[in-house]
């Protein structure tokens, strides 16, 4: 099927249509990846110039992140991401300013008001669960969110995201089992970059594919190439749809490359050879997706340049905004340890509406 594009390109729309998307979606996906990358690179520059003591980044993971987050319904479905999830957070509604405010740990950082390290994103408004440092705990939060979605009849899907090293934590076993027993609307995404800091996959995992774990819970396990953004999108859409239909969780494993050290505190040359690092560069999802979109006629040079300019301005704007934003005051440092007791008023009760899924027949016992 060939569709003639507005700019006279013979192929425009073909690629998008194959995936049930529009060209505008593909461009938006590309833009989000480019934006995540540019923000990330800016963080490292800030770090090297002494303006940001710590950076942890998602370089190499952006293709998987954008493809996989794309099928989520914004501000409705939930994500419980991890510290590399910059692109994921951008997809679901966080802004470059939000990212940079976290990087500079400013008072107006919506993730934590400067209380957490950079990279520990969170945004209840966009249904992004606050990232903590202990890895893998978030799978259980996603499972609980999915449980509440089911019980309250909210039709939401919850997605938990983590690295392959983190997938070996006990919480992952416990969470997948419970989600599978109750067929909860949950998706577990593993971004497998082959390392947990310096420990290579062969020392962290007894199987090649984390997705092999899925069969032990009777759920589908899917491996996708994290440089193939649209394959990631498809795998995720199927998992999200399946979850929403009440058929239970899916485990998606995206094979990605970590293009940077683990964090700004890590020297990866100590444990990865030069040739391995060079090979890794060939798995950078950004040029691969760019080439795919060019090839498909979705992206021409002008569009690419426009996006680049736009991204650059966005990063500049976010950086200078955040850098100029005020630091938190010690006076507020004891705020939010506990909530204010609501002066004896009991919280308003909730009851299911007749149409809700938690009425007769739709619940856990089904």
């Amino acid at each position, binding site marked *: 099927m060939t569709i003639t594009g507005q700019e006279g390109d013979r192929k425009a729309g073909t690629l998008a249509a194959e995936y049930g998307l529009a060209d505008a979606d593909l461009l938006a996906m590309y833009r989000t990846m480019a934006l995540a990358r540019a923000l990330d690179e800016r963080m490292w520059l800030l770090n090297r110039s002494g303006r940001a003591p710590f950076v942890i980044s998602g370089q190499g993971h952006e293709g998987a992140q954008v493809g996989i987050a794309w099928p989520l319904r914004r501000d409705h479905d*939930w994500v*419980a991401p991890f510290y590399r999830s910059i692109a994921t957070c951008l997809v679901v509604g966080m802004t470059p300013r939000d990212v940079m405010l976290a990087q500079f740990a400013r008072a107006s950082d*919506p*993730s*934590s*008001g400067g*209380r*957490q390290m950079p990279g*520990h994103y*969170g*945004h*209840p*408004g966009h249904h992004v*669960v*606050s990232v*903590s*440092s*202990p890895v893998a*705990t978030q*799978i*259980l*939060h*996603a*499972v*609980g*969110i*999915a*449980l*509440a*979605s089911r*019980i*309250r009849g*909210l039709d*939401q899907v*919850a997605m938990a995201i983590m690295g392959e090293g983190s997938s070996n934590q*006990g*919480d992952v076993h*416990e*969470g997948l*089992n*419970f989600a599978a*027993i109750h067929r909860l609307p949950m998706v577990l995404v593993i971004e497998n970059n082959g390392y947990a800091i310096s420990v290579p996959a062969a020392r962290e995992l007894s199987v090649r594919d984390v997705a092999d774990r899925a069969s032990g819970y009777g759920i589908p396990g899917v491996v996708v190439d994290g440089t193939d953004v649209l394959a990631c999108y498809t795998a995720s859409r199927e998992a999200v749809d399946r979850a929403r239909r009440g058929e239970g969780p899916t485990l998606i494993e995206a094979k990605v490359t970590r293009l940077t050290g683990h964090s700004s505190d890590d020297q990866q040359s100590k444990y990865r050879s030069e040739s391995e690092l060079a090979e890794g560069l060939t798995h950078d999802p950004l040029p691969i997706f760019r080439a795919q979109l060019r090839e498909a006629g979705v992206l021409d040079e002008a569009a690419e340049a426009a996006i680049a300019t736009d991204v650059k301005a966005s990063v500049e704007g976010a950086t200078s905004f955040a850098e100029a934003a005020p630091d938190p005051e010690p006076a507020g440092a004891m*705020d*939010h*340890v*506990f*909530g204010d*007791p*609501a002066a*004896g008023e*009991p*919280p308003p*009760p*909730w*009851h*299911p509406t007749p149409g809700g899924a*938690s009425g007769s027949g739709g*619940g*856990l*016992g089904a």
Partner: protein
Amino acid sequence: MTVRTFIEAVREGMAQEMRRDASVIVLGEDVGKKGGVFLATDGLWAEFGDDRVIDTPLTESMIVGTSIGAALNGLRPIAEIQFADFIFPAFNQLVSEAARMRYRTIGASCVPMVVRAPYGGGVHGAMYHSQSVEAFFTHIPGIKTVVPSTPYDAKGLLVAAIRDEDPVLFLEHKKLYRSVRGDVPGGEYTVPIGRAVVRRPGRRLTVVAYGLMVHYALEAAEKVADEGIDCEVVDLRSLRPLDRETLLGSVRKTGKCLVVYEDNRFGGYGAEIAAIVAEEAFDYLDGPVSRIAGPDSPAMPYNHILEDWFMLNPAKIADAIRKLAAY
């Protein structure tokens, strides 16, 4: 008012809140058909069904972690940990996640969740079914810890805990479940978290206790009353937040303070109470702030002779009172 056992009061508190608010759910091991190993949730599954009374797999970290997630998405979970001794696999979820969610989101997210756990010894539970775990949790900012000693408080504090916007660890002494009865209003009421109560007024010496130890302290106070030692017994009820006013007010009046706790002595919750009193009531003290607590052995042994050796009782507490009174 009806006379109820402690466990009946716990059950009634849950049932009433579940009727009032459909966002309240119960989950844990054996809480469904069986009604819990102590029958605290007996009847709830029959009334509220599979959706709201969930028999979970044997996985405490999952029980707590999933409750956190459910609380983030509009439910008010009551998680039952079958024995407080088995809360440790969930320690990371409690310390790192439940307790810190509000702080790390500058108040944008919160975790209204209750974790109920039967604790305490003297019931032939041995090393792993007898423990007092409050010291681990009262040290954690962001979690509230509550230990009722009467059926009235059990229901009222539980309802307050369920309605609270923060995670509350609700510790129920196993030995109180069926041995203690008391008047419990049939209707809705709360006992506010964070307020201690003077169970017995007195002038010579303050005994500070919570949970089962309140009853033992009262018995001990009766024993020594005949000898002319007039004790005031403070039931803390809420270990964190702590009611400093009632605690310090009592000690400033009596000038002497004995802290009673069943847990291992070293680093137990009573250490904090003793430290506060020693610092903030120093000018009023006419004797050392003293503690009587469990021995520093790794948990309570099974054999009944050793269990008796481990457990505090009114006689041991009375001895400690006499010693301090004679100072």
